[in-house]
């Protein structure tokens, strides 16, 4: 079974590899272009539409430190495809090496069901949920910067921190119940 495994390859020197999984294949390209501009660390970006990844790339593929699922909240297919891809990840990834990035949350205000579903998913898997704006270059740069911070920790390049420690701080939490009385 072709599960993607986080620990079965040796890491590279001063290298970090990130895998961007997006069904629409649009935002990932602009993110990748910004991510490779990082100078302190060599960043390798792998782009995919869904998991599982093709077997023939297995030898040449470096160890993947962070898997990011990019979900477009306006499209149902996006959410479904991301959920289907989750099955192909080794459980070792869910200790801080998976991240959900969501775009178009403002436009999807009408269908809050999808956002809640993604939030539930992130909570159950203990993963961070990031909101991104993909239409302007500033939005792309800021999302890339956030991803880089998590990526550096996940690839072990930040001393005294590991992905698991960081995930305790960044993981998604469900918002408190609406039924609770607010303080007026």
């Amino acid at each position, binding site marked *: 079974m072709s599960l993607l495994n986080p620990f079965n390859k040796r890491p590279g020197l001063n290298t970090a590899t990130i*895998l961007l999984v997006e069904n*629409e*294949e649009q935002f990932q390209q602009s993110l*990748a*272009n910004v991510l*490779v501009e990082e100078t302190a660390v*060599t*960043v*390798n*970006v*792998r*782009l*995919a*539409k*869904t998991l599982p*990844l*093709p077997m023939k*790339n297995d030898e040449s*593929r470096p160890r993947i430190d962070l898997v990011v699922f990019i979900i*477009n909240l*306006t*499209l149902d*297919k*996006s959410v479904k495809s991301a959920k289907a891809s989750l099955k192909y990840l080794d459980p070792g990834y869910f200790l801080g090496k998976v991240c959900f990035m969501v775009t178009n949350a403002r436009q999807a205000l009408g269908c809050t069901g999808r956002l809640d579903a993604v939030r539930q998913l992130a909570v159950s898997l203990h993963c961070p949920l990031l909101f991104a704006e993909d239409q302007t270059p500033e939005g792309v740069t800021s999302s890339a910067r956030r991803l880089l911070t998590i990526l550096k920790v996940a690839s072990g390049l930040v001393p005294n921190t590991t992905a698991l420690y960081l995930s305790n701080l960044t993981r998604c939490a469900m918002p408190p119940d609406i039924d609770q009385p607010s303080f007026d």
Partner: protein
Amino acid sequence: MDDSAKRLLQRLVRRIPTQMLRDTLDKWERLTAKQRAFVDFTQSKWTITQELLAVCEERELNVKHIAELEMIYVIGNPNQGMWHTFQLVDAEDDAHSLELVQFKEQFKSHLSELKRNVAVKIKKHTDEAVWIRIAWGDTFSRPNHLKATYVVHYLQTPFVFVSGLLSKHKPLLLQALTLSTRHQGIKDANLSGQKLTAIRDLLMRQYQHVFPTKYPSPLAERNRSVSNLHIENEQAEASANRHRMAGEAFGNGMLPALQSAVYKLETKFRDLTNETMTERDKPLRCVVKFSSPNILESLRHCASTGTKNILATSIKQMMQLKGHDFVSKYFYCKQNVSQPVQFFKCPQEVTHTVGTTGLILLQELLQLLSHPCCHLFP
């Protein structure tokens, strides 16, 4: 200048945006350079109108000249208003050797025989199109220049595009056109839209054609550029395949910007979960409407991102070959691309037997369309 000329000029200045107004006046060439410099285009439209009225009075221009100005504007910006297409049928022997001068004379004489007091202006554009502007009048009234009809015809092709035509004038215009182009009949081609350029390109096949090739993909590049060394697409082959297939079906160039396509179908409902509908003997009559800023482009995008593995090619072929609209009940199609198309929803009649989930996805719909029972009615 008489009243109608003044009103026409006022209407025109209001309609044309200021940037284009200057260019249009330059092309018109009825005002001297000094007079054109006199009009200050940075002021409000009302001031511009007054100045232009004064200038035109000086030159003693009448309504015919202002009509010319309007024509120049419309020729430069044809993608406004609603254009309808007609097709000439049954050409006579000398239809293919029809010349512009002959056509002009015949058309003017036929039209004035049919209706008195029409003002006709014919102009040949650089790309072989003949533009005709018609202001209709009565035996008792002068031609009404405010509501002119525009006709575009490419000589020796069977297509005529008309905009701004009232139904009472339609038979007269069609008769004059048929006689002057030496055909025996004319029929409605059922293709209409706002963008004249798009419907013209579609009908006259002026888009990039797709020819089948034996070796479709070019040689792979050996040296990749530096920035790409760190970015790698895992499923590059699959996506390249999809792009190639989309290119094969739609071509890689600009596609004519069709904005709405309506199909009338008489077909069979096919949904395994729903037996009541599937077992009906009578064919299911439905209307399919596709609407988008650019339908063909969104279908091509759909095919290249693999959202629906399709039958987009069959839709495109249908649009090209038939070239006319088939009216159907409303199914709207949801597409997750940058040019969104509307949502799929079952028409009222079908919903109360189907129940809450009256949704037919694009894929199934397209299967419907390509189903052998599907008859497309002209």
